[in-house]
């Protein structure tokens, strides 16, 4: 299991990395959206957990770039979006990619971790 975690809040990134590693997952991290694009185009991940509000670009830009490599169906299974701004517009846009959206702060951390590992199948 190989997860790419794109999160610019360092404390959160560190904690999530640690927690996921405890579950036996290989975790690659980055704070930058552009770097995330590079990584996902050059390496293969089982899951990409991506924050929406990054310093350089938006999480949606990352997903758009991922279209070069993956089909829409693959994207909907590969990506999980994290956001602190779960407004209706954001949810609607995420819906067009078919990705699972998780609001921060997480209500149940263990449930969230298992979602990351087992996959964010929408409409479960």
């Amino acid at each position, binding site marked *: 299991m190989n997860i790419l975690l794109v999160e610019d809040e360092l*404390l959160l990134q560190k904690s999530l990395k640690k927690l996921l590693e405890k579950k036996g997952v290989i975790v690659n991290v980055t704070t930058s959206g552009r770097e995330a694009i590079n990584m996902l185009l050059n390496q293969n991940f089982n899951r990409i957990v991506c924050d929406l509000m990054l310093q350089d670009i938006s999480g949606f830009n990352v997903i758009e770039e991922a279209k070069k490599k993956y089909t829409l169906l693959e994207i909907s299974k590969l990506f999980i979006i994290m956001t602190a701004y779960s407004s209706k517009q954001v949810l609607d846009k995420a819906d067009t990619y078919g990705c699972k959206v998780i609001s921060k702060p997480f209500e149940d951390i263990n449930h969230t971790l298992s979602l990351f590992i087992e996959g964010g199948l929408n409409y479960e």
Partner: protein
Amino acid sequence: MENSSNPRTKKIQKNARLTAYLLGSCTDTSFAKLKNIFNQIPVIDICDSKTNAVFLASYLGNSIEITTNHSLIDLNPILLPDSIPLLKKFFEDYQRYLSNKLVSTALQTFNPVVTKNLKSLDHHIKKIESGILRSNNQQIESIKTKLTDKNEVKKFLSKCITIDDLPLHILKLHQFKNYKTCQILIHEKGNTAAESLFLSKSQTLITSKISVVQFNKIHTIIKKSKTKLFNQTQLLNNDLGVRGTFLAREINLFKHSIIIVVSRNDFFPATTLEQEFFQEIIKNITLVLNNLLMEYLSQKRNKLLKLGLLHLDIPLEICDSNRQIFFSNSMNTTLKYTHQDIIDDNYTLRYSPYSDVSYSSDLYHFQRISLLGELLNTLRHELNNPLFGLKLTADLLIEDSTSKDFKETLDDISSNCQRCQNIITNFSLLYNNQDTFIDLNLYKLLKETLILTKSETRGIEKEIIFSTTLPREDFKIKTNPTWLAQIIFNFIINSAQAIRLSTLDFTHQKITITATNKCLDTQSNLIISVTDTGPGIQKELIEKIFQPFITTKKEGTGLGLSICNYLTTKLGGKIFFSNNIPLPGATFSIELPLNDLNKIG
């Protein structure tokens, strides 16, 4: 042009008599002849001084040369035969012309265009006058009619001050004495409707609107016509009030198109003379019409403005320097106005901009909500993320940590992060503007609200008391949590600020929040009160405490309680307060009905 300070002008205005100075030597026989002729003309006086005379006359054998000596008259020297009737006529016409000229001088101060137009008319008259002298007797009659026509137009123009009067004055003209109706259509370019002023003889003016499409149709037909003489078969239109044949003419001004229609309301076509006169009138009206129109429009604007002020929700009055009311839109003369503005040296505007408490509170409530809501939303998102990270990290470290001390400290960090998040969430809930009613636990809501007031109430004892009839932990009420929390929040903040302002020692100070139910015959009500031990409400504030902008605090907006009042009404309840006599402090309460909407869970 005319100089009113000129003594000669003044003299003419006073006497309205014509004077002539006779040139030549007293001993000369021709001079005696001239004097004899002038003595037989009643309208003219012979004058001894050359400077005061209006005319200068000299005898040249069979003819007399007349030149003007007056600034009001620009007459080139003319030669007249020494015929007494002709001279008499000449001077009589001039006298008429001069007295009219005086009207024009009076007009000049406020309407230069009228004067200018009159001047050109005068010129015209003069031409005709000279014509009289050169023509034979048959021609004189027709010229005379023309002259009277011109004079008529001149009189007409000097009378016409407003557009409203225009139809009346047109119908009053003696050439139109058989005409029954006059209609004026005014279209301001770019407007979707044109205005119609319609006057039937011996009736009042009817104003109405017609569509611009109709106006353009009429306008086009009239414009294409050469004779400007129409009958209903050519121009059958409901918007024209005339019947039978009629004269019509279009006028195009800078910003307006105008149509003038006159009719006898019968089927006989207008005579050539009438047609000519109509054209003459239109030609002359055109020159002054723009001014009249501007005047008319500005009057209309003023009327609308006044009407608007009368219907304004804000009571206001305008007083002159003697404090006499000049204008007021309120019947209530005893009204106390809260605001005052000086308009200029003479007038003062006094008004109460926030008379309608519910309306303005509504407005200010939404302003406050949207501003704070936005701010809190940003704050929530910006703080939630790092707080979440902090909490997650602390939680992780707790699991890794072996030292009990470390674990406890990390626990504190984690729970404090959680508390911060809760406070932020509660605050943003307090200022979101959802108007849904939900079942909520009252005690929990009061407790959460109390937490939000922590900084203001620091050091002051607080207590939440539920009456024994209410199950404190389980009591539920169906209401709007945001509004209720805001009301209670405001009450507590007010109490805390009142206490803080009155004392620095909080040992005996207390804020009590009480919930009781009051059973009436048909239903039971819930009363939530906030009681403090502060200085209470000053007597003079008691009546207007719920009005907006009434505040005792230096930095207060005076909006808090007026918003509370408004929100309580929205919750279907009542708001009231009292001073805790004989105890110190005040109690603010709201009473909510516990009916189907707010049932006990």
